[in-house]
């Protein structure tokens, strides 16, 4: 089985987060980058399918600046067979332009599954996967939390608001993978050494027209939070009064 996994390099904003001087991007000072969380699950799903089937090829693709190769190398060290780096100065916010750049890399390559993470942790758009599927004319299931494949079909489950949806689809297909489906493995030390010898093809990304762009980036408005109503159960009547009369939510 031939599987593609499309992954994204995102800044790790857990430790450090500041808006850049251009007011439209984040301050790169001291910033570390990593694979977007959900993409790790997508890689794990691909690797497990390959292991279950005892063969095949898993290819990782990523679009972005030079540093993108580090996350591709990480994917290779987890066990991905080869990687494609679509070079771009920056990753556009416009998901459709990214999907358009991915299409020629995915079309006619014989991929039976094309996997994405459910969403990237930086933009949080959750769009590139289903858009790519639509452009490729392929069936697509998003936010897959459970997956079973038989001959030429798959059964996926999606955990939606309050319900679990079971979806049947034919292969080849595009899936976006939710977390929790299969804990991503850590790259082993041998895997890290082996990844040095695996190929990364580098090509310029053919980004389409950009219609969606970031105009400004700002910190969320400071909440006037931190109001301590009181201590202990004695404060409850005052809290209820405020919820009713001031906040008007009761």
């Amino acid at each position, binding site marked *: 089985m031939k599987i593609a996994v499309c992954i994204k390099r995102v800044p790790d904003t857990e430790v450090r987060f500041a808006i850049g001087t251009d007011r439209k991007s984040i301050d790169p000072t001291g910033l570390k980058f990593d694979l977007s969380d959900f993409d790790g699950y997508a890689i794990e799903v691909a690797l497990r399918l390959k292991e279950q089937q005892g063969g095949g090829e898993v290819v990782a693709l990523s679009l972005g600046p030079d540093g993108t190769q580090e996350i591709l190398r*990480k994917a290779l060290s987890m066990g991905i067979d080869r990687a494609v780096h679509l070079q771009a100065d920056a990753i556009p916010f416009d998901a459709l332009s990214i999907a358009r750049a991915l299409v020629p890399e995915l079309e006619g390559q014989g991929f039976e599954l094309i996997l994405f993470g459910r969403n990237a942790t930086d933009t949080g758009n959750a769009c590139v996967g289903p858009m790519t599927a639509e452009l490729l004319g392929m069936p697509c299931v998003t936010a897959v939390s459970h997956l079973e494949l038989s001959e030429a079909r798959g059964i996926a489950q999606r955990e939606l608001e309050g319900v679990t949806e079971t979806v049947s689809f034919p292969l080849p297909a595009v899936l976006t993978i939710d977390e929790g489906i299969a804990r991503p493995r850590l*790259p*082993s*030390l*041998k895997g*890290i050494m082996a990844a*040095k010898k695996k190929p990364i093809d580098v090509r310029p990304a053919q980004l389409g027209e950009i219609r969606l762009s970031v105009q400004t980036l700002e910190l969320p408005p400071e909440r006037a939070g931190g109001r301590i109503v009181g201590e202990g159960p004695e404060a409850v009547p005052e809290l209820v009064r405020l919820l009713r009369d001031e906040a008007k939510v009761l």
Partner: protein
Amino acid sequence: MAFSGVDFYQLDTLLSEEERAVRDTVRAWVDDQLMPLIADCYIEGRFPKELIPGLAELGVLGANLPEEYGCAGLNNVAYGLIMQELERGDSGIRSFASVQGALVMYPIHAFGSDQQKTHWLPRLAAGKEIGCFGLTEPDYGSNPGGMITTAKETRDGWALNGTKMWITNGSQASVAVIWAKTGALDDVSSIRGFIVPTSSKGYSAKDQKGKLSLRASDTSEIHLDNVQLPRDALLPKSGGIKSPLSCLTQARYGIAWGAIGAAMACYEEAVGYAKTRVMFAKPIGATQIQQVRLAEMLTEITKAQCLTLQLGRLKDAKTMTPQQVSLAKRNNVTIACDIAREARRLLGANGILVEYHSMRHLANLESVYTYEGTHDMHSLILGEEITGLSAY
């Protein structure tokens, strides 16, 4: 929150991509696998042996030995970073990996026959066999050459007699590398290494009870009561006290890195606490006394990082001397002890709880200060290096 390390001087830029990748993968492993367990293990006084398969699968055991024996074939900087990350979790788990890699796999690789290497190394790398290292004796710690454990040649092989003390992994090991004199007790050159399956008749190990340090580590006393070994139990290329001491240089190299890990853990905990703990209506981090504490910690960590990274580069260039390792071990463990103690104090009363890590590290580091050459012995080794005169 995940551990993010300390890198004030951008030393990351001096690491290769795979060195960083190795560090990050072990760091993540420690966060995922060790941190949730360590407090309970420490209180229960138990080594988390359920983690051994995971450690082996990751490739941590003997990671700087060649791939042909099932090892990862990493350079020594990457190996050092592994030790750093493991000890960021707990000195006990780093001790386990040090013993398996530097004190069991290393001597088999350095002094063993081809057959011994191909038999033992892949099994040890895979964690299928657990090793321990028997050198120290009840009355011979800093002076291992004085050992009184003997190996007498028999018709079929060897007979070992003696007692070994402070043996990490002693009770859980399936195989021990035991050092014994094959000649007269005053003949240091007759010291040889032996591979001893712990299932051998006459071999026994008992846990050292009552430890207040390294509680998540298995420490034992080993008795060898006329243990009969085949001829090929001998490590053929071992000879003299130099052989076990060279193993200790390997392990000590890892300790120099490990101590930085423990220090970083304590520093990070102290910084987090100082920024969030409010006393007298402001975070304690806004007080001068805590800022001085934190500045000292960061300074010492940064100095230790610089010297240890260079030590690693020297080791990879094969020009590292044992005295350079002594300096690093001596310095790094001392500063780690100091940082752990200051962090614990900064944490106030909370600092005595196992939920926080600094006091556990502090207690552990007292052992690390003492083992693999005490702090004082390394002072004397450096003194001898400086003056050319031995004071011990």
